[in-house]
C-alpha cells in the first residue's frame, strides 16, 4: 500500500546526510568535549562547528547558542530563567492562548509561584493582536513569550512588531520558533527577539536535541538544571554530542534548501487547500489563509470526529493528526482551536496535514482521491442532523479577540 507521511509538524524523517553525521559522531568520536586530551578536543571541535552552523542559520553569534534536549527544555529554560533573573524588576509575564504546552504550562507554573500572567486571546485565525500586547504591558512586565508559528493551525505571528514594543519598554522577548525554523526565514535580528527556541526533530534532525538562542546581554540565568559547568554554565550535563552534530547538519541543510523548499511546499499546500475546500462540503480551513506556514494545511470537517478520520486515513496509508478531544489523551479538544472561537463540536472534527520535502503532488492527489469517500462514509454514520445542527457560529460573535480582525 502507498504510504504517505503528512505529519511533519509532529516530527520529520531524519535526512541521510544527518544520519551520516550522527553515525560518525557515535562511531568515531566518542570523547567528552570537556576533556583536555586529544579525544575530548576532537569532539569539542565538532560541537563548536555545530554551534556555528546553528548560529549562522538564525543570524546569531555562536556564543549565543545553548544546546538543550529539545524544544520543551529550551522553552522551559528560557521562560523560567528570565523570570528568576528579573524578579527584582517585576513579576508580570505575557503569553498567548495558543502556545505549545511547553510554553503554556511553564508560564502557568510560574503563575503559581507569585508571577502574574496575562494570556492574550487570539482572533479567528489564531493571530495575536499587537494592540492587545500594548494594552497588556505594565510596569511590572518582564517577559513576553509568543510563538513564531503555531503548530496546530500554522498561523505566523507578528513577532517583529511585538518584539519592537518589548524592546522599547525594556521587556525581554522570547519566541518559540520550533515550527517556523527551516520553513520560513528565522533571523533573530530581524525578529528582534532576545530568546528563541528551536528543535532538531522538526527540521529532519534527531529527536531529543534542540537549542536556545540567548541574545548577548540578556538578563537570563540557568535556573532549572544544577550541575557541571557545561555550555558556559548555561546548561549542565555532558553534551548530547551525536544529537548536537546532527542538529548542526540539519540546520545547515535547511538553510541551503530554504527558498526552494518554501516555494515547493507552498505549491503542494495551495493545491491541497483549494481542492479540499471545493471538493468536500462543510469544510473550513483553520488558521490564517496567507500568513501561514508553507507546509501547513488544517481543516475542520463538520459532523465527523477527528480520530475516526485519522484511523480511516491510516487504513489507506496516510498519516495525519487531529486536535479532536478523542485523540488528545486529555479528552479535551485542542486549546488552540477553542481559543480561536471554534465550538467544541467543530473542533472535534479537526485534522492537520503538514507537508515535508519528500511529499509529491501525487501524494496530494492520492489524498484528494481517498478523503471524500472517507468523509461520506463517516457522515453517513453520524447521528447529527446535518441540516440544522451546527448552524454556523464561527463568525465574529464567537471570536474572543478584541482588535485585529475587523473583516
Amino acid at each position, binding site marked *: 500500500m502507498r504510504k504517505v507521511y503528512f505529519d511533519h509538524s509532529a516530527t520529520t524523517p531524519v535526512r541521510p546526510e544527518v544520519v551520516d553525521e550522527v553515525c560518525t559522531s557515535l562511531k568515531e568520536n566518542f570523547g567528552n568535549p570537556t576533556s583536555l586530551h586529544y579525544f575530548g578536543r576532537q569532539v569539542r571541535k565538532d560541537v563548536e562547528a555545530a554551534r556555528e552552523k546553528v548560529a549562522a542559520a538564525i543570524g546569531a553569534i555562536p556564543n549565543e547558542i545553548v544546546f538543550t534536549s529539545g524544544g520543551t527544555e529550551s522553552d522551559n529554560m528560557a521562560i523560567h530563567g528570565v523570570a528568576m533573573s528579573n524578579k527584582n524588576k517585576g513579576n508580570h509575564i505575557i503569553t498567548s492562548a495558543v502556545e505549545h504546552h511547553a510554553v503554556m504550562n511553564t508560564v502557568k507554573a510560574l503563575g503559581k509561584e507569585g508571577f502574574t500572567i496575562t494570556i492574550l486571546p487570539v482572533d479567528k485565525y489564531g493571530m495575536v493582536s499587537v494592540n492587545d500586547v500594548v494594552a497588556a504591558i505594565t510596569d511590572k512586565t518582564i517577559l513576553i513569550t509568543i510563538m513564531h508559528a503555531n503548530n496546530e493551525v500554522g498561523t505566523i505571528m507578528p513577532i517583529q512588531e511585538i518584539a519592537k514594543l518589548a524592546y522599547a519598554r525594556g521587556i525581554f522577548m522570547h519566541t518559540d520558533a520550533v515550527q517556523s525554523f527551516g520553513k520560513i526565514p528565522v533571523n533573530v535580528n530581524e525578529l528582534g527577539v532576545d530568546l528563541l527556541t528551536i528543535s532538531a526533530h522538526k527540521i529532519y534532525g534527531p529527536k531529543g536535541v534542540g537549542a536556545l538562542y540567548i541574545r548577548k546581554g540578556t538578563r537570563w540565568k540557568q535556573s532549572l538544571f544544577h550541575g557541571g559547568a557545561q555550555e558556559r554554565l548555561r546548561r549542565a550535563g555532558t553534551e548530547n554530542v551525536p544529537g548536537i552534530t546532527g542538529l548542526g547538519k540539519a540546520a545547515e541543510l535547511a538553510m541551503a534548501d530554504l527558498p526552494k523548499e518554501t516555494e515547493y511546499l507552498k505549491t503542494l499546500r495551495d493545491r491541497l487547500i483549494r481542492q479540499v475546500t471545493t471538493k468536500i462540503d462543510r469544510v473550513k480551513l483553520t488558521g490564517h489563509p496567507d500568513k501561514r506556514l508553507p507546509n501547513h494545511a488544517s481543516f475542520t470537517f463538520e459532523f465527523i*470526529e477527528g480520530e475516526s478520520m485519522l484511523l480511516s486515513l491510516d487504513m489507506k496509508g496516510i498519516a495525519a493528526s487531529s486536535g479532536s478531544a*478523542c485523540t488528545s489523551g486529555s*479528552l479535551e479538544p485542542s486549546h488552540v482551536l477553542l481559543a480561536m472561537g471554534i465550538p467544541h463540536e467543530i473542533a472535534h472534527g479537526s485534522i492537520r496535514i503538514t507537508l515535508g520535502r519528500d511529499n509529491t503532488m501525487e501524494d496530494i492527489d492520492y489524498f484528494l482521491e481517498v478523503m471524500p469517500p472517507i468523509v461520506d462514509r463517516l457522515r453517513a454514520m453520524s*447521528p447529527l442532523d446535518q441540516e440544522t445542527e451546527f448552524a454556523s457560529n464561527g463568525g465574529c460573535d464567537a471570536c474572543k479577540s478584541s482588535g485585529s480582525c475587523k473583516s
Partner: protein
Amino acid sequence: MYTEKVMDHFENPRNVGEIENPDGVGQVGNPTCGDIMKIYLKVNDDNVIEDVKFKTFGCGAAIATSSMVTEMVKGKTLDEALKISNKAVADALGGLPPKKMHCSNLAADALQAAIEDYMSKKGKK
C-alpha cells in the same frame, strides 16, 4: 493501539443506519469527550429485539462499540439486552485501551435509553 476486532468493527460496522418507525430510540452524549450516539430498536410482541441500528459521532472505539453492542443484542429479549454491561462489550472487542474504556459507556447507555424509550411508549399505549 486498537485490537483487530475493534478495527474490523470500525471498518465494517454492523447495523449502521436508522429504522423507520422504530419502537424505541435512544440518544446519548458522551460527557467525557462530547461524542454522540443514537440507537434505534424494533421490538416484537415477545419483547425480542428484532432489529437494531445505530448512528455514532465519535472515535474509532465509539463506532466499534456501537457496532458490537448492536450485534450482541439482536435476537435477544429486552431483559437479556439490559444485562449487557460496558465491560462485556469491551471484552467482546478483545479489550479497549484504558483511555478508551469510557467510549463503551456510550453504546450501553444508548441501548438502555432506547429500551427505556420503548418501555415508556408501550406503557402509554
